[in-house]
């Protein structure tokens, strides 16, 4: 698997293709929706890990992976793909250890989308105000 650290935050070719394939309204809407999906799934993941709910945590990672890759957010998609594999192998220590990396990559994707950062970082006990 490609190293997520080396991947571009956004694959410009995918963005260009989406610009051709979607009408202007949907193009704008889908990128706002991705920002909401990132925030929503990260909150879901933090809450699931806090209560040791592995099924919900795995599903949150899986959803984030699909949403990111569909819109060419390659670094986030590849990191989620790696974490999804670890989650499927029940390697939760690795998933937990990667929360800060995941939060940082989410911030980069949100910045690329022109959105403010996450309410939650990697640690669900820390709420940034």
């Amino acid at each position, binding site marked *: 698997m490609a190293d997520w650290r080396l991947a571009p935050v956004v694959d410009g070719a995918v963005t260009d293709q989406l610009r051709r394939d979607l009408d202007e309204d*949907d193009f704008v*809407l*889908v990128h706002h929706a991705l920002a*909401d999906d990132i925030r929503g799934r990260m909150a879901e993941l933090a809450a699931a890990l806090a209560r040791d709910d592995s099924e919900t945590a795995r*599903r949150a990672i899986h*959803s984030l992976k699909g*949403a990111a*890759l569909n819109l060419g957010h390659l670094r986030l998609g590849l990191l989620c793909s790696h974490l999804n594999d670890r989650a499927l192998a029940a390697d939760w220590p690795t998933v937990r250890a990667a929360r800060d990396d995941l939060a940082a990559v989410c911030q980069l994707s949100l910045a690329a989308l022109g959105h403010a950062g996450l309410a939650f970082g990697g640690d669900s006990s820390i709420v940034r105000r």
Partner: protein
Amino acid sequence: MSACIAPKEPIMSEMLEQAISAAIADKLVLVVEDTSSSRILVSGLVRGLGAHRVVSATDGKDALAKTIDKALVPDIVLCDWVMPNMDGLELLTRIKADHGSVKFIMMTVKTEAEAVIMARQHGVDGYVAKPFTRDSLMASLAKVLGVS
């Protein structure tokens, strides 16, 4: 001479797109995805291919609730596999049991042979690997619409 060869592929693609557009125009398409960006993306692409009637659901349970209304029984379902509440495989089974003629396309990262075979055993009509493109969506829609 080369001018005769070069346009061949684009023309084939345009012809396929026109055929899909004509066949899908009056069909009701149900998009089932738990992430809103994927829902908007798939719905937008399908509308761009000529579908005038596109509705969406957030998971299998929501989709099934929508099909209780006979007017909302779809002709084509484009569905994610992994979702909360009711996943794509269960929705496929339930939809096929109640409405056998509905064409069901699974959109998923589960591309390993076991998953494909399982979906086929449950009656799936098409399969789109994620991350998908407009072209891969077109290919699967062409198959279920019987256009080539």
